[in-house]
């Protein structure tokens, strides 16, 4: 049995409209974020890995299970979709409970698991209210409770942070992290890049149905050769450091920070720069901090796809 979520040369067309094309992915455990603008194929990828849509070409497997085998697939997968519709007339508890009953669980175990999942999603107080009376954030949470209810190994969450207030967001992120720490596969789609940056172990960048990059964000960043790496250095003598850095052929641009206590440097070879910094530090310049300024998802996304506007 495979321990990955695999896409092998997968394409999906909706009639003549391209969903995704020639996708090859091997997703490991941890938090993986699918990032891309509307229509880039994030939801299609999620629907493909949960069997809601079938590939026009290629093969998708989740931990060795075919996606056209829902009976086994959803023993290990929980999917909180972006579809904001529920079976009519149900309370939050009934929604999660009914899902567990459909799974074949007996009444007692379904009730216990539903209560646990609802508690994890922070919906205990509203559990007996009709879903029709829920706010968008509450509906988001109850969908998450449903996805979590049977304790799946793979959690697929389509825009899970949409509609949540900052406190709820941090609670949800804590849940994702806890699941990932337990060895789960947490697949998240999002267009809020700074949040993705904070929580993701790896990212899949999508544009117009194509995967343009995948992997750990630093690795992806390092592979983008045409954009020099930007590094922010805080030190006591920035001007002296800048003069020394210009001595290196890899340095492209150096600018002194407005407060006069640091500088922003662009280099073609980050690894060589870090080695040089060790020598400089030994030569008396006090380095307070060193931080890459553009190895976040936003920068990588801008380099690969275009402006951040495209993601909104």
């Amino acid at each position, binding site marked *: 049995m495979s321990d990955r979520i695999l896409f092998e040369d997968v394409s999906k067309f909706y009639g003549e409209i391209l969903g995704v094309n020639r996708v090859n992915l091997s997703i490991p455990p941890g938090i993986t974020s699918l990032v891309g603008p509307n229509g880039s194929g994030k939801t299609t990828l999620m629907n493909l890995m949960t069997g809601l849509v*079938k590939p026009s070409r290629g093969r998708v497997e989740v931990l060795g299970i075919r996606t056209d085998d829902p009976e086994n697939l959803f023993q290990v997968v929980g999917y909180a979709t972006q579809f904001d519709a529920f079976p009519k007339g149900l309370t939050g508890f009934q929604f999660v409970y009914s899902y567990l009953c459909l799974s074949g669980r007996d009444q007692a175990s379904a009730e216990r698991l539903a209560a646990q999942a609802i508690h994890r999603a922070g919906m205990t107080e509203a559990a007996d209210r009709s879903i029709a009376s829920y706010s968008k954030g509450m509906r988001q949470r109850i969908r998450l409770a449903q996805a979590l209810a049977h304790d799946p190994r793979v959690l697929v969450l389509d825009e899970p942070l949409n509609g949540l207030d900052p406190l709820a967001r941090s609670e949800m992120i804590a849940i994702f992290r806890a699941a990932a720490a337990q060895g789960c596969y947490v697949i998240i789609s999002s267009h809020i890049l700074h949040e993705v940056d904070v929580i993701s172990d790896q990212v899949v960048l999508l544009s117009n149905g194509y995967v343009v990059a995948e992997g750990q964000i630093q690795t992806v960043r390092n592979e983008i050769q045409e954009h020099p790496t930007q590094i922010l250095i805080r030190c006591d003598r920035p001007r002296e450091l800048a003069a020394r850095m210009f001595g290196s052929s890899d340095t492209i641009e150096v600018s002194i920070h407005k407060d006069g206590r640091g500088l922003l440097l662009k280099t073609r070879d980050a690894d060589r720069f870090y080695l040089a910094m060790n020598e400089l530090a030994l030569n008396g310049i006090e380095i307070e901090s060193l931080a890459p300024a553009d190895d976040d998802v936003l920068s990588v996304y801008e380099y690969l796809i275009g402006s951040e506007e495209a993601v909104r």
Partner: protein
Amino acid sequence: MNRLWWTQIKGVLRLELKKTLLAKRGLWIYFLAASPVLIFIAFTFAMSAHRSRMEDLSRHSDKQLTYSDLQAVQPGMTKEEVIAMLGKPSIRWQYTENRPIGPHTTENLLHEHLSYSDGQDDLQLDLSDGKVDSINIQTGDNRGQDSVMFAGIFQFFFLRLVVFFGCLGIFMNLFRGEVLDHSLHFYFLAPVRREVVMVGKFIAGLLATCIIFVTSEILQTAAFLWHFSPGVRELYLYQNHGLTQAFQYVGITMLACVGYGALFLVAGMLFRNPIPPAAMVLIWEAINPFLPSVLKQISVIYYLKALCPVNVPSSQGTPALLALLVSTSEPISAPLAVLGLLTVSLLAVCISGIQVRRMEINYTTE
């Protein structure tokens, strides 16, 4: 069927029954199911009014008449002879006809109408020129005629329209309705075979339609029997196979729900718009009498008609050309009819099973 599947089907049933039976948008189905009951209630009221008129006529007659008194009147008897035998009529009206007997001459002919009643049965006499011309006795006990009327309403209104459109409304919506509501993914994201979901939904549809239409059928029978006097009712139910027929009608209603339900289940998966398949099936069922024997068997009404306990004679007014087009086929036995209908239904359910596996959740194209 293994135990897990049965547990999962029960889960689907819980959700679907509530949704199907209590949905506001399904309210019209209840009105539809109530319409034949209303027809029989109206019929019962009409019959009661007729009976009280008969009793009224009987009370106002000179003599207390019996059915044999009414039967004793013969054509050609004079008005005086009739009055001597039955007394003064309760209702009498007359008119004079100015009839030509030559190129320029006419004669006046007196037409009279006399009504008598023994309280239950009704004698209508037409007299011309003082002699009995025509005799019409309407018996209060019209069990045979009434049961043919019941069979006619059952076959041509209840089965072909009420159950047909009711099943259309319920079974087409089992999948289509949830696609339109964008909520079908709830089932498709559960660890349950899609065929099990389909079977669960089909059983839920069957239970809902059976509850609605069998109740309607029972109420129709009750309303139909209401106008009979207790004695006649007992005679009809226990000595004229009335009770057996009532059970047969309930059974046929349930089989109709199975047959039409299966057809509309598959239609709901194959078509986005319910109107073309509904029209197609309706036309196919309507032209069934004109189809060759082999094609007749690919329909629901063919088997249901074979099961009906009372044969409805074809109308006297059927045009000769149309009557010629009606194809005759060997009547089939009840077990074969049930088997045939279940086979057609099973075939439709199997196609639904294949179709549900192919279904994709892509609400944006709906």
